[in-house]
Each structure stands twice: as C-alpha cells, then as structure tokens.
C-alpha cells in the first residue's frame, strides 16, 4: 500500500495534505477491522470465563458429584445434573437416529434423482424448515403434534413393541420421544443442505466412470458418492448434533420438565436447555443460580467439542475435494 499515497488523484487539492491523511487512515481502518475480529474471540472466551466464574459456588459445593447426582431440590439446596444431561443426550440421540438417514436420502434425492427444477423447489422447501423460529415448533409441538402422538403414535408403538420398556407408560403426548422427533425435524434441513453440498463436490468424472461400468444410481451412491464424501457427511452430522443439543424453546414446550431419569421414552423429562429456560428467572438463591450456570457450562463445553469435530471433518473435506473441482 506504500504506492497508494504517492500521488493525489485530484490535482486541484494540495497533494501533501492528502498524503498525510491517507497514510494515517489506512492503518486505523485495518486496526479497526482487526479489533472487531478479536471481539468475536473475546466473546467466546468471555462466555467460557463468565460461566466458569458463575458456577464456582456450585463447583465447590458439589464437585464431580454434580454430574452424577439425580437430586434437584431448591428447598434443601441439593442439585445434580444427571437428569438434565441424560435428557439432553437421549433426546439428541433420538433426533440423530431419525434425522441422519432421512437427511442423507433427501440429499440423495436432491442431487441424483430429482430433475433440476424439482430439486431446487424441494431443496428450497426443506431449507425453509430451518427458517421457522424455534418457538413456532414449540407451539405446533405442544398443541398439535403432542396430541397426535398421544392419540396415534404412542398407542401404536406400545402395541407393536409389546410393552417394551422404552415404549411403555401413559401416552401423554409430551415427553422424550416427542421432543426427540421435533428436534429431528429441526436439524433435518441443516444436515440435508451440508450433505447436498458434499455430494455436489464429488467430481463428476468419478461418478461417470462408475455409471460407465453399468452401475445403477443407488450403486454409484453407495459405493462412490458416500465413501468419497464420508468425512463431509460426518461433519454435517456433527453440525446437526450441535444444533440439537442446545435447542431450547421447542424442547421446553413438549418435554414435560421433570427432574427424573426414566427409561421410558414416553415419560416426561428435561434437558439442560429446558431446565435453564424454565428455572433461571426463579432461582433466587446463589447456589441454585450457580447450579443452573454450571448446567450452562456443561452445555457450552459439549457444543464446543461438537463444533470442533464438525469443523475438523468439514475442513478436511474441503481440502480434499477442493482439488477435485
């Protein structure tokens, strides 16, 4: 940039004055952008530090027992995270089990099977699922989907499974299974769109070679496209996982909010996020609030690790496929 200040563009203005101004403003502009970038890093660090500081009273009182205790009693001041962590993990697991295969096969439909116009229409519609705010999923889930589950899906599952422990108990509609299914619907567009991009990155030559050998579309997908894009698909799944694990409002509406671990998927449960949403403003005592903040810290660390994994796999994919395009 040394040259940029050499000559004034407008000869009517005295050159020296402009030179000084320019030389001074460019570094300032650069410094401004750098500091805004650093602000992002500062925000991440700030969240971690403040959550850690906020959880100190709870960390000192309960130690590691916090993670494995099922107690949650604001009156006696005894708190444990087990039911919230369990609910978070199980509801997320349900979401992944449903959403991953569904997303993969929808991505396959969009890339390999549908004609271009249908593909862009369907792809656009699926992406709209991601635009619907979380609270709308909650409203729909509580007033429409939960009664539907109670009337049709849960009695059906109980009958078919013969009262298997996972599918037993009163079909109330709300509970772990309903929350997991709504989560699945919410992360579906994220996994689908990243997987679609990964599928599109597979070089056409590789696929055409397989077609040339007489493979069917499914065989090309199973033996060429999916293995080729496996790392990217893994990244997409972690991205969806990160979304599901921290999702708050939709889950809070339908999970039933109960601090107890139950094997039945029909039972009311809670997640870290739903516990925070329900109880944070009620927590008047220091220890209660601190326990809630420690729950938040656990959730933050979980999403942090998941993001690390997602970025790692997606970056490797981009590096590998970058040359192929």
């Amino acid at each position: 940039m040394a040259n940029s200040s050499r000559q004034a563009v407008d000869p009517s203005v005295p050159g020296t004055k402009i030179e000084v101004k320019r030389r001074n403003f460019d570094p300032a502009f650069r410094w401004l952008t750098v500091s805004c970038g650093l602000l992002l890093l500062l925000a991440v660090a700030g969240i971690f530090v403040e959550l850690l500081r906020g959880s100190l009273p709870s960390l000192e009182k309960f130690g590691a027992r916090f993670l494995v205790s099922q107690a949650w009693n604001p009156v006696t001041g005894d708190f444990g995270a087990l039911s919230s962590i369990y609910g978070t993990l199980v509801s997320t697991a349900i979401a992944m089990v449903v959403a991953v295969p569904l997303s993969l096969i929808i991505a396959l439909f969009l890339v390999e099977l549908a004609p271009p116009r249908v593909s862009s229409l369907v792809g656009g519609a699926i992406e709209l699922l991601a635009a619907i705010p979380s609270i709308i999923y909650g409203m729909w889930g509580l007033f429409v989907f939960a009664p539907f589950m109670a009337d049709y899906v849960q009695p059906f599952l109980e009958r078919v499974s013969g009262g298997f422990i996972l599918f037993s108990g009163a079909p109330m509609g709300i509970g772990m299974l309903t929350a997991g299914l709504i989560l699945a619907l919410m992360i579906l567009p994220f996994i689908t769109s990243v997987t679609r991009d990964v599928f599109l990155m597979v070089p056409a030559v590789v696929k055409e070679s397989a077609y040339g050998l007489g493979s069917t579309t499914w065989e090309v997908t199973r033996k060429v496209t999916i293995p080729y894009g496996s790392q990217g698909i893994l990244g997409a799944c972690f991205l969806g996982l990160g979304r599901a694990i921290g999702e708050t409002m939709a889950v809070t509406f339908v999970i039933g909010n109960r601090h107890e671990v139950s094997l039945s998927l029909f039972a009311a449960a809670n997640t870290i996020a739903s516990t925070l949403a329900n109880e944070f403003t009620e927590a008047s005592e220091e220890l209660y609030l601190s326990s809630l903040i420690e729950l938040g810290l656990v959730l933050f660390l979980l999403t942090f690790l998941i993001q690390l994994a997602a970025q790692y796999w997606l970056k490797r994919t981009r590096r590998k496929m970058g040359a192929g395009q």
Partner: protein
Amino acid sequence: MKGRSIKVRRAADFAIRVLASGAALVGIGFLGWILIVVLGRGIGSINWAFFTEMPAPPGIEGGGLANAIVGTVLMTFFATGVGVPIGMLAGIFLAEFGRETRLAEWVRFGSNILMGVPSIITGVFVYIILVVPMQNFSGVAGAVALAIIMLPVVTRTTEDMLNLVPNTLRESALALGAPRWKVTLGVVFRGAKTGLVTGVLLAVARVSGETAPLLFTALNSPYWPRSLNEPTANLTVTIFNYAMSPYPDWQAKAWGASFLITAGVLGATLFTRGLLWYRSRH
C-alpha cells in the same frame, strides 16, 4: 458388483428411488403441516386491535399486543445497529487483511464456535455481564444478546461475499491510487452489495424470531416499552408465557403472535431468495 442379477440390482435401485422421493415428501409434508396450523389458528386473532391495543387481562375480550410488537422491533433494530457493523468489520478483516494468517484462522475458528453456541447460553452470559450489574432485566440486555447471536452470521456472510469479488477489481482501484479503506468500502462493498444486503436481512430475520436469549435478559412486560432500561415486552416471550397459560383467549393471542413472527421471518427469507434469484438472472 458381481453375483447379483440385473433384476435384483434394478429392484434395489427402484426401491431407493421410491424411498428417497418419499423422504422428500415427508419433509415437505411437515413444513406444510406446520405452516397450515400456524396460518389456520393464527389468522383469526389478527385484527386491527392486535396491532394497536395493549394486552387485555384473561377473560376480557379484545386487546392486542402492540407493546410486544414495538418491543421486538426496537430490540431487533438496536441489535442490528450493534451487530451488523462489528460483524461486517470482522468480515472485512478476514476477507481483505487477514486472509490466511494465523490470526485470521483464529478469528474464523472463534466465529464458528460462536455460531454453534446455543442461544440460551448467550442469554445466560448476557445475564451475568449485564443484568446482574445493572440489577434489573432490560431491553438493552436483550438487544445485546441478539447482537451477539448476529455477529458470527454477519461476519461469515461478509467474508464469503467479499471473497466473491474478483481481485482484479481491488487491484485496479489500488492502481488508481485509492487507499485501502476506500477500495474496500467504495469498490469491493459495491460489488458485493446484493449478497451483503441479503446476508444482513437473513441475520435480522433469524434473531427477530429468537426467544431463548430474551428469557432472562429482556424478560417480558405487560406495559408499553418506554425505555430499554427496563423489562421490555416482546412477541416471542409473550408467545411462551401465553401458550403456557390456561386461558384460551391468551392462547389464541399466542397463535396470532406466532402467525405474525412466522410471516415476518419466512417473508424476509423468501424476499432475499427472490432478490438473489432476480440478480442472478439480470
């Protein structure tokens, strides 16, 4: 691919095709289901009073959510005012100055992590740094929480959009003697205008539907938002409170508010998509 007859392979292929089309239909079906429910249940609550009147106590006819609508607009506005400039400058750093440097890699990493932070955690963070010291819930805290959520989104879109501008344009401007900041703001930004506008619109649409970060920052309020230094009424937390209440007329209001939020967010999303489509054709 040996051993299996062509018939079996064709059948498997056909089954997958049917399955894939079915899965796509399932996705669209759920989208349609949600939209129809929100439209069907919400449209009945939308009338003139909904936009102009204050909330009525349960059991009393009429009333509206004028205060919540204004509160949501105000907080989104302030969040945009803070989040967009900072996010754009960070994006400029990544695309124009930082590029492949170690520092830029770190900022990119931080931005990705921040994008993955659950919005309720952002709410807890802002509660600790603003609500506790100020000793009351406030619209300012809500706006800051929304701004933090916008930041990484704006940063990434800005970087992506600026990267699309060809380097020759920068070089031409620099060769004419323009300083770097002028090249960025006057030339590169102009080249990336449509992309930037759509990115910002999408970020605004996204945060305007957020609930979790407002729960313990802006809280909610039955009163008119006179200043952002006090708990501020907003649509999304109102939906949450009203939906959880046992009163049918409040629940109806919650559906009305849901309709409004959905229409706003989806409208903005479709508008930006139309804009991009239009630009790509002309």
